[in-house]
């Protein structure tokens, strides 16, 4: 589904990603872990097409298509979804209007008919249940005045609605207490399927207790220095990032 090969990216003059290689197959969940400044969020942003990054080398292909030349909306229309670490507040932009515009933009790009108001509302109420969200969310402006937990739930709610093929969760656990974390993780798990892949970007092992990954990659200084199964996350938790750093340098 996603093949990343020799990916290098800069912010300004500074190189942040220094040659990444990994492959995500359909239905797999990959965790990307690493200390602050390792390039985790940069990877998420480069894949989703955020401005401000320059790819200097390498490729990223999504179901055979070169992802890096596409606009952010084209990537989303192909089935890529980014759950933001810091969901953006859009005062004045009504949530229902926003969700409908997003869903119908994606449907239209695939040659599907736009959903009418009634079918849309039915669909949306069904998806709200997955995240234990209240109807009142629909009347509010996108993320405006939401608590940290509400914002993160709203991200996963959007993911449930847009049904992406590949979701990138960028530090979805940051700022969540244990109860909110469980709700968000339950939502993510409900969306697991053999056709849907996920990349879970996180600093802490904690989230992976709830969302069990198939693979764990450790990112440090812009490179994947270790890859393994979910046990790697536990080992990392136990020994800390210092261990990987030392090992990485020793290797």
């Amino acid at each position, binding site marked *: 589904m996603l093949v990343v090969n020799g990916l290098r990216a800069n912010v300004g003059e500074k190189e942040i990603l220094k040659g990444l290689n990994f492959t995500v197959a359909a239905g797999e969940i990959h965790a990307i872990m690493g200390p602050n400044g390792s390039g985790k969020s940069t990877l998420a942003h480069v894949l989703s097409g*955020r401005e401000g990054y320059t790819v200097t080398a390498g490729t990223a292909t999504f179901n055979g298509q070169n992802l890096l030349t596409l606009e*952010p*909306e084209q990537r989303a229309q192909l089935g890529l979804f*980014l759950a933001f670490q810091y969901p953006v507040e859009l005062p*004045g*932009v009504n949530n229902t*209007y926003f969700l409908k515009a*997003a869903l119908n933009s994606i449907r239209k790009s695939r040659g599907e008919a736009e959903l009418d108001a009634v079918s849309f509302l039915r669909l949306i109420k069904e998806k709200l249940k997955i995240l234990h969200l209240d109807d009142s969310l629909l009347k509010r402006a996108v993320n405006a005045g939401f608590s940290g937990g509400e914002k993160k739930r709203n991200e996963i709610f959007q993911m449930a609605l*847009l049904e992406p093929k590949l979701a990138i969760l960028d530090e979805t656990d940051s700022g969540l207490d244990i109860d909110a974390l469980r709700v968000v993780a339950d939502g993510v798990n409900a969306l697991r399927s053999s056709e849907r892949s996920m990349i879970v970007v996180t600093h802490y092992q904690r989230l992976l207790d709830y969302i069990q990954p198939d693979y764990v990659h450790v990112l440090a200084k812009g490179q994947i220095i270790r890859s393994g199964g979910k046990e790697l996350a536990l080992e990392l938790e136990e020994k800390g990032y210092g261990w990987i750093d030392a090992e990485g340098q020793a290797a």
Partner: protein
Amino acid sequence: MTGMISNGFSHWLTAAPDAHKQLFELELPTTKAEAWRYTSLKSLLEQNFTPAEDAANAIQSDDLNKILIPDLMSHRVVLINGRYVPELSALGDLPTGAQIGSLRAALASHSEMVRSQFNQYAFNSLFTALNTAGLNDGVAVLLNRAVVLKNPIELIHISIGANQPQVAQPRHLIVLGDGARATLIERYLSLDAAIYCTNAVIEIALGRDAVFRHERLQMESENAFHLTGLSLKQNANSHYLGVNIGLGARWSRTELVTNFAGEHAECDLQGLYLAGDGQLMDYHLDVTHAVPNCTSRENFRGILCGKGRAVFDGRVLVAKNAQKSDAAMSNNNLMLSEGAEVDTKPQLEINADDVKCSHGTTVGQIEPEKLFYLRSRGISAPLARRMLCLGFAGEIIHMLHEEVLRDYVAEHVGQRLEFSATGLS
């Protein structure tokens, strides 16, 4: 300019001769005057305006149906070229103690009340004097003590052009007795592309505890000039909420002058303007806290695209004895192009020491992270920009009371943004 003064018909009006006389004393403002620093009269003076002709028959009820906002229940008053048109108006049932109708008719009648109130509140200016001297007609709204109107009054001013540029000078007088409540929706529009000018003057006097909601939609044609001079006098405990939507006209200037005559009164001035290529939107707000314990709010938002221009000049004056005055002013502008320009000038003049006053202005662009958030959800960049602009405008649009009116305005703002989208980068 002399064309703005029509001759003769208002001889019965004592105000008119004075206004005529005043015209010779008042000078044309130039950009040297502070209040006109950013606004040139040149394009207005280049036109050879003649007084607007009576064109009451130019519009049939079929045409009117295209203008009406579906499902808006209102006491409807239609003016064409400044003249009251009873055939197209539909006042409906009015409660006892409520009078709505032609101002000229009210002045011509023996109503001492109208005569004593007319021209008492209007601020002094050349354009007020022109309006008074060349008065066409307008609406008089008189509500006795404690009269409450449930449905809004809807005032539709339609300009019908001629070969020659014309000027219409509607005049409105609104007097609410103690505890009276009403909503007025004013709409200014045209059905053709002729060059014309509307020079409207509005006088409002609110009694004690009166509540007045005033929603103004300036949606003149793209060749129009529009002037509004609005004077407001508020007695104790009265509430005024003004929502000023400015979308039309190539050259538009609105002056709002508020005076508090009693304590604990509240004046809330909200505004949204959209200026595209070749448009000027000019707002002057002048709020005087002459007595203690009053509250004023000024909150204007602008969207500028192409080579659009806007001026926001907000002034709050707190007199020496007006303690516990509470005044807040803000003006936020969203610039969608390099060529657009806004001159924003908030001024607080505070002469009392126990007051709460604040002001803030911003001039910014669409924030890239907001745009990216929408695009990351599959929404195209042009649609995302329009959604963000509408969101920005939404804060003001939501102040409109009727949902159908909010939808109507949002749709027109959306259309204008779509039209301007070609110029966006």
